[in-house]
């Protein structure tokens, strides 16, 4: 290593202009890469895809138990999507704490709110991409059912699609919120299955819990049954997404990284 090459290698000569802030779009792109470029992430995304496909086949194989309508097929795909897609979102928030690479991330961009916001943006992209994939899978299932000679109600409307996309988004954001709050992969994944189950059990004993907190309130979103349920839906969104996400952001910003 000669002095002249190392001089260039170390880049000291080129460091004259003061660089501007990191553009938000760049943060989002980097977070997207980090969320998707590991084998673990690809496996999980693959499994989420498989579980969606598997779920979408259920109304094809069990025509008696499911409405044979386009909307019904799309909703079943949503249920398949939301088994594992929230876990992908959780890992995006917690993985860097568990792997401790958060230490590097926060030295690269010390404005931690921007990092969390970028991860949030990636999770929205992930939700929309997932919803698109679920739509394609549902279309395939519908095609399969139609090719077997079954007549399906073509009842797809803008409202159905909006409810479907929002349902997927809410489930993913609940994962984001839990991950941001708990900052541990194991704890957040366990909680993402245990908490809704616990609340659902409580809901059998209390209609208050059932109508205002239980995640089944989001079925109103999926089924397009907004009318009369707006306050309950809003409350359960605040409970599962708003409050834990806000608390998680505060905790992320304040936490000492050691």
């Amino acid at each position, binding site marked *: 290593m000669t002095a002249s090459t190392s001089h260039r290698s170390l*880049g000291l000569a080129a*460091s004259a202009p003061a660089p501007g802030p990191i553009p938000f779009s760049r943060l989002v792109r980097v977070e997207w890469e*980090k969320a998707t470029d*590991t084998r673990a992430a690809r496996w999980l995304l693959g499994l989420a895809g498989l579980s969606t496909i598997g779920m979408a086949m259920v109304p094809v194989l069990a025509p008696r138990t499911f409405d044979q309508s386009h909307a019904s097929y799309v909703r079943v795909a949503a249920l398949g999507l939301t088994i594992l897609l929230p876990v992908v979102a959780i890992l995006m928030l917690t993985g860097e704490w568990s*792997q401790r*690479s958060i230490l590097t991330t926060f*030295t690269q961009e010390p404005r931690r709110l921007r990092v969390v916001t970028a991860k949030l943006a990636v999770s929205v992209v992930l939700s929309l991409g997932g919803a698109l994939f679920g739509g394609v899978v549902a279309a395939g299932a519908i095609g399969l059912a139609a090719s077997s000679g079954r007549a399906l109600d073509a009842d797809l409307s803008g409202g159905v699609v909006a409810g479907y996309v929002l349902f997927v988004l809410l489930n993913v954001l609940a994962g984001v919120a839990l991950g941001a709050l708990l900052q541990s992969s194991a704890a957040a994944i366990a909680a993402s299955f245990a908490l809704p189950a616990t609340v659902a059990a409580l809901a059998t004993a209390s209609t208050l819990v059932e109508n205002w907190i239980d995640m089944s309130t989001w079925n109103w979103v999926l089924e397009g049954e907004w009318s009369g349920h707006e306050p309950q839906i809003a409350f359960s969104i605040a409970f599962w997404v708003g409050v834990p996400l806000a608390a998680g952001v505060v905790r992320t910003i304040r936490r000492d990284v050691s």
Partner: protein
Amino acid sequence: MITTTALTKSYDTTPVVRDVSLHCEPGTITGFLGANGAGKSTTLKMIAGLVRPDRGTATIDGRPVVELPNPTRVVGMLLDASAMHPGRTGRATLTTAARLAGVPTEGVERLLDLVGLADAADKRVGTYSLGMRQRLGIAQALVGGPRALILDEPANGLDPEGIAWMRTLLRDFADHGGTVLLSSHLLHEVQATADHLVVIAGGAVVAAGRLDELLASSTILVRSPDAGALAAALRAARIDYVVGPAGALTVDVAGGRVTTQVLAEVARDHQVLLTELRPSDVDGLEQLFFSLTAAEAAVPQEVPA
């Protein structure tokens, strides 16, 4: 330039860092020396903005790290070589860092060459040895072309050849106007790498200054087969001495007036053969370091959080 003033941090009620003030100038390598748990890592993490100090400030080129718009362009940091995603390859790790810093990703290949990881670039970091992770971490610290480097125990896990390589690299970086702050719990590592030294024990700075000044010996040992002639020569030159074991004479440096060169000249002028001529207590710093390390058992330890 890296500056801290009176950085102080406690975990619960246990003080971990107490009033640590550092000043690292461009063109120098500052060794931050202390036993494990002395508060080195916590201090560096406060400079990095990862740990919030209870009191005190830390700035790089006059600004706190958290206020730098794009910190990796100003300061490269390697705080924990194991804090990398094991599922990503070395090349992907550097490419991501380069992209975030906003520098051309073509530089990644050059950096991989520089740190000797070109052949392992497409292996996952999880398969790397600690030494390879240190090399990758150094590459990551350099990716934005920073003017300052902060490295926590960079020699950990490196083999002797790797340590020599790193010393050359850091010296080169400093010689081109860069500022380097590196921590170590090994005195000899710091002695071989740094030109400035800050010793921390029990969370507080106990010694700081230029390495050569801290190392300066107060006595010189000089030996001749003809001890009587040497003693006479010293007396003639009005140099005080004490007779040591096996005929060696120990000479006081008298505030710098007497150096090894002065003694060599005296010996030449009196035609006395010398068989040994050296500062007699080069291990003074080592003694200081070990006495501080031993004393540290009595003061609160750093708690891993």
